[in-house]
């Protein structure tokens, strides 16, 4: 009697398939299913009530959700660009250092080592209108007013962007520095011989070579910032008056405080669009940048 045997490759992959199914696939399917129900954490029976696309229709017509969506895109654009510029500057400068570079690299990475919650508390205190460091410094310099850093819409967005940038610029700096280390010296020396200015060498040789590294950092950080939660929740909680409400502060309040997990999951699936669009955009840019420096398409 011959027994049908499962192919070896499948047997070898089976443990990985089981683990991935348990920790990724099943929760994903479950959350997708629950987004079509009025699932409330406090009423488990609501999980079995199918409401079709009700949650999605509600979200599509909800101005508050789309305001948070737009604000997240704005926050992402500002934070990502500034982090890239600052990270590029830091990397180029660190690359020039010939003595103590390793120590400097470690110091550059310090902000990344803090927990986002700690960073949130730190900047919440720094920007407090009454007892905060910034206002006290301004007042001691003769500026007799208490600037509402975490209340005014623009100032509040600036404050949370400042905290986010402070913590994560080093991600760009380290990745770009890795690019600089990997860069061949010959084109730069050839440019010098040909009489290029330092700016021309940077603009036409260094930067194109660094672009793939920059786009990889952009992709990673865009996924991070699109899920920005800890710092914003601690510093402003999305307020006041929804002025700093981002997708994840809205989603977490809907899911865990209001206990409306079905609706929150639907919001999660709609907001994935954001991450998918940014990822596709950056990967296209990455491919183009690699082609430009002759690393294939």
């Amino acid at each position, binding site marked *: 009697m011959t027994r049908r045997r499962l192919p070896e490759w499948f047997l070898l992959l089976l443990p990985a398939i089981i683990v991935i199914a348990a920790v990724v696939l099943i929760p994903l399917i479950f959350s997708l299913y629950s987004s079509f129900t009025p699932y409330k*954490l406090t009423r488990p029976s609501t999980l079995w009530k199918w409401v079709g696309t009700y949650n999605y229709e509600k979200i599509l017509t909800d101005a508050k959700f789309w305001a948070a969506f737009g604000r997240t895109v704005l926050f992402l654009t500002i934070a990502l660009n500034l982090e890239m510029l600052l990270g590029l500057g830091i990397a180029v400068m660190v690359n020039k250092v010939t003595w103590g570079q390793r120590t400097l690299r470690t110091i550059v990475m310090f902000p990344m080592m803090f927990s986002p919650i700690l960073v949130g508390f730190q900047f919440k205190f720094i920007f407090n209108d009454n007892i905060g460091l910034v206002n006290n410094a301004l007042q001691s310099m003769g500026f007799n007013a208490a600037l509402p850093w975490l209340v005014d819409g623009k100032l509040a967005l600036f404050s949370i962007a400042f905290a986010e940038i402070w913590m994560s610029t080093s991600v760009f700096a380290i990745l770009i520095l890795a690019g600089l280390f990997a860069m061949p010296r010959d084109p730069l020396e050839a440019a010098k011989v040909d009489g290029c200015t330092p700016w021309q060498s940077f603009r036409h040789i260094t930067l194109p070579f660094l672009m793939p590294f920059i786009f990889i950092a952009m992709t990673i950080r865009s996924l991070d910032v699109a899920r920005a939660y800890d710092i914003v929740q601690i510093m402003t909680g999305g307020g006041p008056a929804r002025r700093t409400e981002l997708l994840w502060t809205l989603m977490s309040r809907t899911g*865990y405080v209001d206990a409306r997990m079905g609706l929150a999951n639907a919001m999660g699936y709609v907001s994935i669009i954001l991450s998918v669009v940014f990822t596709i955009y950056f990967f296209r840019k990455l491919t183009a940048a690699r082609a430009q420096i002759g690393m294939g398409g």
Partner: protein
Amino acid sequence: MIKSNTLRALLASTAVFAVSESALASDWGSFDGVTIEAKLIGGQQYEGLYGRIAEWEAATGAKVDIISKKSHFEIDKEIKSDMAAGTTSWCVGSNHSSFAPQYEGLYADLSGLVAAETIAEFVPGNIGASTVDGQLLMLPRAQFDVSVLYYLKSNYEDADKAAAFQAEYGYELAVPDTWDQVKDQAIFFSDPPNFYGTQYAGKDEAIVGRFYEMVVAEGGNYLDGDKKPIFNSDAGQRALQWFVDLYDAKAVPAGTTSYVWDDLGQGFASGTVALNLDWPGWAGFFNDPESSKAAGNVGVAVQPMGSVTRTGWSGHHGFSVTNDCANQEAAVSLVNFLTSEDSQLAESAGGSLPTRSAVWEANVAAAQAGDDPFRAESLAAFAKGAEFAFAVPAIPEWGETTNIVFPELQAAILGDKTVQEALDDAAEAVDELMRESGYY
């Protein structure tokens, strides 16, 4: 201060002694070998009571395993996750009158498990606020909250200030008895950014609770009998206008819209706020030179009136027993012990307010006979304030409505919307929620 501390220590130790006597004398039952799992609210002011659990264990032979101890907001999330996962076989949970209606089907109706004469020993209002849809979901502990007015006494002892106020507002400067007077005085006392007339909670449930009690004080209500939102009435608009006017006049700190209880307590303790509506737990903190720059200068008065009645948003902590508990009899015994007269005497010796009538009387009598006039003054204010106390609407959606309403209140305060626009928008969204929840 040292004297009063000694007195308190003596009172507390006497209470503990009396309690240990009574723990042995009272019949808490015998539950040898039983282990009761409990999820309790954690925090400095709540810990004293848990120290007494050992006495109940000794008296009954049972063990208490505290499987979770967190702030109420954290424990609320954990309980909701438990309900979703079906892991609700633990027995005793900390509860709060504002949270209780959310946990449908989780907790047992104690009216059938606790003796009627025991229930009658509690303040009827507290039992009412612990009852949802006719079910007594928790027994109240000595952590009753209603807010009264704390003020800096020095502002009322300065003849020049009094004369200037009289000239500007046309009436005598005295501790305010109405919210209109609070507004006048707050604007008069303010000298931003160094000194503010008052402050208020500016986000989450905190500001909605404050707004809710103002609406009631103005003669309106939050929801009608059918649970339809009616806070956008004239009374509601007057209530919200009070918050807006103070913000516009810079009589409150610019960051007040991000403040909740700790920020407010620390603000008043910094001595830079003249008038502060706040909870009983802060009384000792405000008058303690170690923690407060306002110490020795703090007065306590009954909460002011709106145009119809006094504000009085209140809530209280309690203990509940789950329906899934394997040994409900032992769990009920533990809850009875934690809310007993002796437990409440011991817990309220730390300054919190009791929920048993006899303990109220004992505390007021002890304060009047003692040598701490501040304690006597604050207890008298809270005893008077408690007469006007009312709880939030007992519906599971209360918390969710506050998440809808608070950003709209903030929008009006910050000038993004007019008072009417903000309240109409909030009422429309709450109306949709109530419809979805099947109320009408």
